[in-house]
């Protein structure tokens, strides 16, 4: 499967990683819904860190849509909430 971290690029991961990533992602979603900034930062760090650890970069000339997309590192809680609430932020 392919995961994109916005601002960094696409990574190829084993499908088996999904179980672990989903747990981290659930925590991230919970933090977003709770609006708890420090919890959000920790969850983002954990999820992005694990994706980077487990993934290897997709060659740039390969043109494939990602199965999952993650916000860029250092995104704020508000930015991510805006991203999820509409597609207005994605240009093009």
């Amino acid at each position, binding site marked *: 499967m392919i*995961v*994109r971290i*916005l*601002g*960094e*690029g696409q990574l190829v991961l084993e499908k088996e990683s999904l179980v672990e*990533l*989903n747990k981290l*992602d*659930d925590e*991230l*979603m919970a933090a*977003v819904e709770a609006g708890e900034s420090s919890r959000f930062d920790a969850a983002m760090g954990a*999820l992005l860190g694990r994706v980077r650890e487990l993934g290897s970069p997709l060659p*740039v*000339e*390969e*043109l*494939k*849509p*990602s*199965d*999952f*997309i*993650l*916000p*860029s590192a250092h995104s704020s809680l508000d930015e*991510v909430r805006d*991203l*999820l609430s509409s*597609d207005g*932020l*994605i*240009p*093009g």
Partner: protein
Amino acid sequence: MADGVMKRMSLIFKSKANKALDKYEDPRETLDYSYQKQMELLQKVRRGVADVATSRKRVELQMKKLQQEGDKLEGQARKALELGREDLAREALTRRANISAQIGDLNTQYESLQTQEENLVRQSKALEAKVEAFRTQKETIKATYTAAQAQAQIGEAFSGISEEMGDVGMAIQRAQDKTAQLQARASAVDELMASGALDDPSGLAKDDITRQLEALSSGGAVDDQLAKMKLELSGGAGANKELEAGKGTSYASKSDEISDADVLKDGGAA
């Protein structure tokens, strides 16, 4: 189960791509139109990278200028101490501390801008590679076109490039926001330096200290000259009167008075 962040985000990107894909009856038109948009985006990214670099260099100059101000103030503090003016030395060092804080502040923003610039360069290269891949696929699809097969192929290539474009587009937006912030910050420092506000590291404020130091150094010379003139003129009674009147307005007898008056005058004029 509700979708997490990563699934939702990919769905948002996909729906965006699908909407664009649905706009054309013949998928081949979509390919050409999309390619055109990709070329436009590439241009925009290159401009974005250049803008960020320009802004970064400007902050670099700004920081160098501040550093020089700081060094000057340190020298002035030393000189003031030599002349026994601890109050002036303290003032110079206070301003210097203020400047150091400004430099630290700018440096943090400078580093983050630098990272952003590096990312943007990397992303723009990736986009270039993907646009080229898209062009190749586009030509292949068009050459061997059968509607049923093309739909699937086009869908994949299109979502792939659309996602890339969205990502890069957002990165440019972020870099532009950051650049604007930094420019505003740099201009604010510029204005402070030009305004001569006393508690800020401005060129004029620094000149006050310089002027006071110069007044201190030349104070002795002025006194000597005065004494000499008095001596010369003490012979003629009429001329003496005239000079006594002039002395009161042209010269202050003590350097402290000169400097304080100057500071007030400058503060008011600035």
